[in-house]
């Protein structure tokens, strides 16, 4: 009885696995990793919540190319995967400073502008940045700022600086991003310095400020801070503008976004091609697709982050176009800076960050 029953169980289990594992079940999100000749496929490595599913589906409908994507929530993951040399992505979407690092490490292949006629749709103000002069390796995707969301009922008046995040009166009601550079950026800006400072004295000052702040912080979270804010668990949530704008749009009387007057991080995420990318045809098909103003607008409408695509503005929802959180006025951006790599000062900052977290 035992032997026979065991064989039945094993047989059933094997049958179940074979049946579920069979590629004929037509699941395009899980086709075998290595495409056969002629099979059209695209492997994306992209931030979570950066591409609405319906935009992907439409692409597949139009071109017949199967899209597979993996998600990440930190730039370092991109560096990790590309450096390991054994990951297999066709497109990645790193942030500004990471593009520079990847280009420096020769992990990217240049973009062939000749194959992207619609590149002209992009606002020249966003091109030719420090991190990629001439846009050899990157194409702007979306951009934004890192400020904080707040609960209107709890804040006194309308905040316009970083001060509430350091105010002992708000103890236990503060959320900070779990990101070393972003947290230091807040401290440095609040102290009146550049967020790319490498001066050890300045960094020490910022570290001390963050250490003083820690007992006031409820949690460090880079993933779903907007939900924590919306659920009422904290009154102030450090975070990226798009996600906060999204939840604020649902409850505008309750939530708001602040781009502090001391300045904040402005960032831009760009599409890049890893050097080992294999499905080159698919890549350019996808890039052209995304540059299409209507498609770009659908992305912006879906994820609440601003793009650099000028003709797309016609199709973007007015609530988003007029939302200062998503499309801030130029005056607000004056004191904002891009995060730049600080070279060897990174190790010092990492030690301070460990100090802060360990206390």
């Amino acid at each position, binding site marked *: 009885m035992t*032997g026979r029953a065991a064989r039945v169980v094993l047989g059933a*289990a094997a049958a179940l696995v074979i049946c*579920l594992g069979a590629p004929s079940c037509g699941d395009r999100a899980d086709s075998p990793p290595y495409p056969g000749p002629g099979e059209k496929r695209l492997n994306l490595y992209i931030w979570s919540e950066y591409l609405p599913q319906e935009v992907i589906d439409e692409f597949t409908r139009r071109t017949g190319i199967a899209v597979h994507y993996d998600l990440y929530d930190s730039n370092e993951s991109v560096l990790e995967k590309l450096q390991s040399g*054994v990951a297999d992505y066709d497109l990645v979407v790193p942030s500004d400073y990471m593009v520079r690092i990847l280009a420096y490490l020769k992990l990217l292949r240049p973009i062939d502008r000749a194959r992207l006629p619609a590149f002209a749709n992009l606002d020249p103000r966003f091109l030719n940045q420090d991190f990629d002069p001439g846009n050899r390796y990157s194409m702007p995707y979306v951009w934004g700022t890192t400020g904080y969301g707040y609960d209107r009922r709890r804040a006194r008046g309308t905040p316009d600086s970083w001060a509430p995040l350091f105010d002992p009166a708000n103890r236990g009601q503060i959320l900070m991003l779990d990101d070393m550079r972003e947290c230091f950026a807040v401290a440095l800006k609040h102290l009146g310095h550049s967020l790319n400072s490498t001066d050890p004295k300045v960094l020490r000052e910022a570290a001390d400020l963050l250490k003083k702040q820690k007992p006031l912080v409820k949690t460090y979270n880079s993933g779903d801070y907007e*939900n924590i804010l919306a659920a009422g668990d904290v009154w102030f949530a450090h975070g990226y503008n798009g996600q906060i704008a999204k939840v604020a749009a649902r409850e505008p009387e309750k939530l708001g976004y602040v781009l502090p007057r001391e300045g904040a991080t402005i960032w831009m995420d760009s599409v890049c091609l890893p050097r080992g990318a294999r499905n080159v045809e698919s890549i350019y098909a996808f890039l052209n697709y995304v540059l299409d103003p209507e498609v770009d607008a659908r992305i912006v409408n879906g994820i609440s982050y601003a793009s650099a695509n000028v003709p797309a503005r016609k199709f973007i929802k007015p609530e988003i176009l007029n939302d200062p959180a998503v499309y801030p006025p130029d005056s607000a951006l004056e004191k904002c800076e891009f995060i730049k790599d600080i070279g060897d000062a990174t190790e010092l900052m990492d030690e301070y960050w460990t100090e802060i977290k360990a206390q």
Partner: protein
Amino acid sequence: MRRRGALLRLHTALVFAFLYAPIAILVLFSFNETSQTAVWRGFTFEWYRKLLSDEIILGTVRNSLIVGAAATVIATVLGTLAALAMGRYRFRGEGLTRNLLYLPIIIPEIVVGAALVTFFGVAGLRLSLVTVVIAHVVFSISYVAIVVRARLSGFDRSLEEAALDLGARPVQTFFRVTLPLILPGVVAGALLVFTISIDDYVITSFVAGVGATTLPLQIYSMLKVGVTPEVNAVSTLLLATTVVLILFAQRLQQPPPERSEG
């Protein structure tokens, strides 16, 4: 004695309540009307329906099952052989082997994961479902060995000797006498491996490649970004399936039959 028994029973009941509270919540909220996981809004099967058409999650479930099945088969075979070697023979390098088998369990998962991804990088082995399977096999062999070994102790070898005396060849003896008798242990070990493999996050996060996202990886990234009750639905289904499997295995775990069965 009766009073002490009551106290013990109360304590045990409380511990069980503690163990099951999150599970109950998990299952309950898979039926929640709203995706705001904080409040209960109403009963619905919507999340299960969404789950069945969610290609992404289904894809990761499929990956998990494939990895689980492959790792289970390989690890069970290797582990059973190892248990037999440890359990019946004295051989040179025995102590070393025992320590080798302990290491994967003892060494923290994060160290194993880091070592494997570094090694794969150095060896130029592309990350994929295969590297995940390799990683899972590595940490599973020891579990099977331990479980089967436990089954082997107190094993009555006279049955095997009788078979050999009656003229059966060693291989025959193994498949027709030994294996059926240790089978409950082997099956238990296999189930253990399968479960651990299905739920492994740490090591898998280091070694998974494109298209090799398993369910725990998917769940973790969803947890970071904002959970929908679909995740609850998947877990409830997995829970139900494993409970059924376990109940089945329980029946197989009856004490070894006296004589001629199996």
